[in-house]
């Protein structure tokens, strides 16, 4: 096997894993710090994608369209938390049903507003070559974006007062209140941040994955499984799981077919959940 081919496979698999991580991080934050599984996460990603698309269509440069998408999704996320999630704390299956339904509403609203097909955004397609192989630059930069995003969320959750409050609230909810933490407000912010991360993902991935009303579904399934396999140490667990599952599936797909890549993903997920029903990180001694 030639080294050029190996390098290409490695880079593009790392890039696939990074894309999965970017798309999943918001879900991991909401699950890891609120114990809520947000099945509308994929739809928030879609909202982020459409927000960024709309912003570029009215003339905003792409780099400014991203913060706009984050702002929009955080705002919608905060409203959703106040109106729906707040009433369902501790009822994980009810929350899943409610967010699933919410996802459908978002999905249909997008169909009504934008139609089922939408234009991609015009981004210059830079490529570079390794030997005989050509790789697009933008998907590769996602490796750096994923690393930066992970570092940002890690610092936010471990070095700030908000982060400490959020972790205290999920670890011992009653004691968190008894020492003066207003958990309700912390949870609203956490959910908004999780949705904002989804919006960021939808916007930054827009040049790779065009906005469509049903784009969320693909990420919802894989993202959900990644977070469940990761377990309670949400951030480190999700990063490792995304790298292992996403990267592994992509490597498998490069050597065989993309169907076998997906089979790898779901087979390994099932195996890991059989071995670690509470997630791979259930016995780790780590902060996040």
């Amino acid at each position, binding site marked *: 096997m030639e080294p050029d081919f190996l390098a290409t496979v490695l880079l593009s698999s790392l890039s696939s894993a990074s894309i999965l991580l970017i798309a999943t991080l918001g879900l991991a934050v909401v699950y890891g710090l609120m114990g809520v599984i947000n099945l509308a996460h994929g739809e928030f990603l879609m909202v982020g994608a459409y927000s960024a698309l709309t912003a570029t269509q009215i003339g905003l440069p792409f780099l400014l369209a991203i913060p706009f998408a984050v702002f929009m999704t955080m705002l919608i996320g905060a409203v959703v938390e106040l109106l729906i999630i707040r009433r369902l704390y501790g009822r994980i299956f009810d929350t899943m049903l409610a967010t699933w339904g919410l996802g459908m509403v978002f999905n249909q609203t997008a169909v009504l507003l934008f139609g089922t097909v939408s234009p991609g955004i015009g981004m210059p397609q830079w490529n570079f070559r390794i030997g005989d192989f050509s790789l697009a630059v933008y998907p590769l930069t996602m490796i750096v974006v994923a690393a930066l995003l992970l570092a940002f969320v890690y610092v936010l959750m471990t070095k700030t007062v908000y982060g400490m409050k959020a972790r205290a609230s999920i670890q011992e909810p009653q004691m968190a209140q008894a020492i*003066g933490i207003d958990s309700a407000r912390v949870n609203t912010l956490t959910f908004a941040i999780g949705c904002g991360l989804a919006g960021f993902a939808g916007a930054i991935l827009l040049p790779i994955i065009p906005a469509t009303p049903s784009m969320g579904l693909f990420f919802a399934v894989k993202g959900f499984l990644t977070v469940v396999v990761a377990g309670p140490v949400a951030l480190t667990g999700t990063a490792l799981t995304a790298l292992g599952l996403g990267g592994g599936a992509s490597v498998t797909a490069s050597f065989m077919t993309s169907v076998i890549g997906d089979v790898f993903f779901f087979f390994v997920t099932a195996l890991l959940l059989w071995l670690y029903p509470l997630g791979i990180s259930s016995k780790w001694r780590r902060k996040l």
Partner: protein
Amino acid sequence: MFKVSGATGGYGKTTIIRDVSLEVQPAEIVALLGRNGVGKSTLMRFATGLVKAQAGTVEIAGVAAPPAPSKRAKMGLGYVPQGRFVFPRMTVIENISVAAASNGFDAKQVVAELFEDFPLLVPKAHDLAGGLSGGQQQVLALARALAIRPKILLLDEPTEGVQPSIIDEMAGVLKRVNQEREIAILVAEQNLDFCLSIAERAYVMEKGAIRMETDRDSLLADKVLQQELLGV
């Protein structure tokens, strides 16, 4: 200073405490005695707001306390629960800092102060609380409660599963903070010696109600009551 009046509450439809009233004066240490299952912990949780009131009120520093536990903490109600409940995946420093910061105090300064009070936490400063021994966790739970600079401190079974040397250290610190910072303390205990070493006055609970109020000297003289409280 701290006053519970007509407290009635429990879990779901079960009422555990009925019409309980008690009072702690400023800078006073009061013990809450009674055997297992008489409702001491429920009364403590009622006072924090974690058990919803079916009837009754709580007063902190002369002001009626709102129902939300977080607001009661901000009014100066510190709570060390039975079983400690430290935040397991947070470091010792973070456990203290989050309590201080949530009440608007400078976290670094509070941590430095409390490390002086509890030197045994210093070597563990950066360890996750979940990995500490039972006694160390108890001391941390106490430090976390003091980090909110309370006016009244509620301690629920602070000596349970804690080695004697640490119990002595806790008793020493409690007496000191009580005198120096004028923190009133209400301590629920099975350990009679510990209570008698710090408290001046005591309430005895039975079947979800206050059976009697007594002071240290009468309790020391009353061997029958002592036997009853210690008896299993």
